[in-house]
């Protein structure tokens, strides 16, 4: 595969042609915050936390869906980028009802961790406090739309890895909701295989094992790389 050279944060780095800026950064140990991205799933560019500056482009671009190109000059951290990332987190917190203190994923939540890491210590926008429901019709799992950040990892893992495509999205913009089987209750879903992959990859407390109380929901998304390596490379390990 042809190798390209680009500049990331004032350092010359090499990448394989076709790689995204995010992949190139990760291979060189350059940390970029992400939320919708997950190793093993297709890139989506939804959460916008991985925004980076590319010289010559007036807009910030998502590192996960922007291809690394020869001679590109990329900046992953500066005052403007950090400010934008905090703003994105503030908007995410304001949009739904993320009450960390009473969440099943308290202390094990990617959104909560990102807010602390990126220094989002308060939200300047008005909280919308939307009226959102909870679907606990499934025997083993529940979905709490109050805590969903629309990363769509559940939609992607169900479609791309499990092959069931139980999850999808209805509505547009702020009206968007993740749904199961053409918006039927999850418990009535005929396509759901009950594999639980969606729950494990969900970064917040939106998808959870029923019976979990506050801070009891711990998820482990690393299973994904393991089963994909088995499937794609015939490398089986525990």
């Amino acid at each position, binding site marked *: 595969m042809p190798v390209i050279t680009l500049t990331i944060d004032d350092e010359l780095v090499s990448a394989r042609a076709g790689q995204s800026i995010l992949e190139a950064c990760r291979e060189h140990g350059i940390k970029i915050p992400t939320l919708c991205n997950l190793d093993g799933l297709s890139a989506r560019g939804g959460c916008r936390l991985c925004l980076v500056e590319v010289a010559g482009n007036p807009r910030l671009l998502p590192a996960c869906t922007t291809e690394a190109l020869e001679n590109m000059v990329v900046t992953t951290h500066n005052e403007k980028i950090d400010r934008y990332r905090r703003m994105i987190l503030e908007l995410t*917190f304001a949009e739904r009802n993320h*009450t960390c*203190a*009473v969440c099943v994923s308290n202390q094990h939540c990617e959104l909560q961790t990102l807010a602390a890491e990126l*220094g989002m*210590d*308060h*939200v300047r926008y008005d*909280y919308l*406090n939307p009226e959102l429901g909870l679907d606990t019709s499934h025997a083993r799992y529940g979905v709490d739309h109050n805590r969903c950040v629309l990363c769509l990892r559940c939609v992607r893992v169900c479609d791309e890895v499990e092959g069931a495509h139980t999850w999808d999205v209805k509505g547009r913009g702020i009206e968007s909701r993740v749904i199961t089987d053409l918006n039927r209750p999850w418990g009535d879903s005929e396509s759901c295989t009950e594999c639980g992959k969606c729950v494990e990859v969900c970064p917040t407390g939106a998808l959870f094992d029923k019976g979990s109380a506050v801070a009891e929901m711990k998820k482990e998304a690393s299973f994904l790389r393991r089963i994909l390596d088995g499937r794609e490379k015939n490398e089986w390990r525990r």
Partner: protein
Amino acid sequence: MSQNSKKVRLATAWLGGCSGCHMSFLDLDELLIELIEKVDIVYGPLVDHKEFPEDVDICLVEGAVTNVENLELARQIRTNSKIVISFGDCAVTGNVTSMRNRIPIKDLLTAVYHEAQAPIGAESLKVLPALLKKALPLHQAIKVDLYLPGCPPDPERIATAVTALLEGREVELAPQMRTFG
């Protein structure tokens, strides 16, 4: 104690919260003894003082601004204090106190004071301060200088912030010390 003018004048306030943040403050344990050498606690649920005093150096404010009484006190705190700290998640984000925000106030009061089997009934509505339409994070009511998140903030967080302020340093909380929840 209040005769010593060199001591820092520290106040605490309890707005719409569960007092858990104040409990965490008490969990400073022996550090409280060191603290009391340096500060006078001039107002708050821990001391018997009815009016919010003037010339307060630091005020830790627990709870969201959820009724007109909270709002009045918050404004007085701002006027009389040099440094105002949002103390805990309810002050910082609204947290549990703001979970009522999607319910119309009339329905809320009906459910709690008219329909529920509670020792305090509808007669109390005449004397209770009126609820604001929404429970607000403190910074939406007054200007806030510092945010101390957590439900409640661990004693370590409180100690780090208060110690830095008393030593005249900028407060820098490590990422693991500024998580919500």
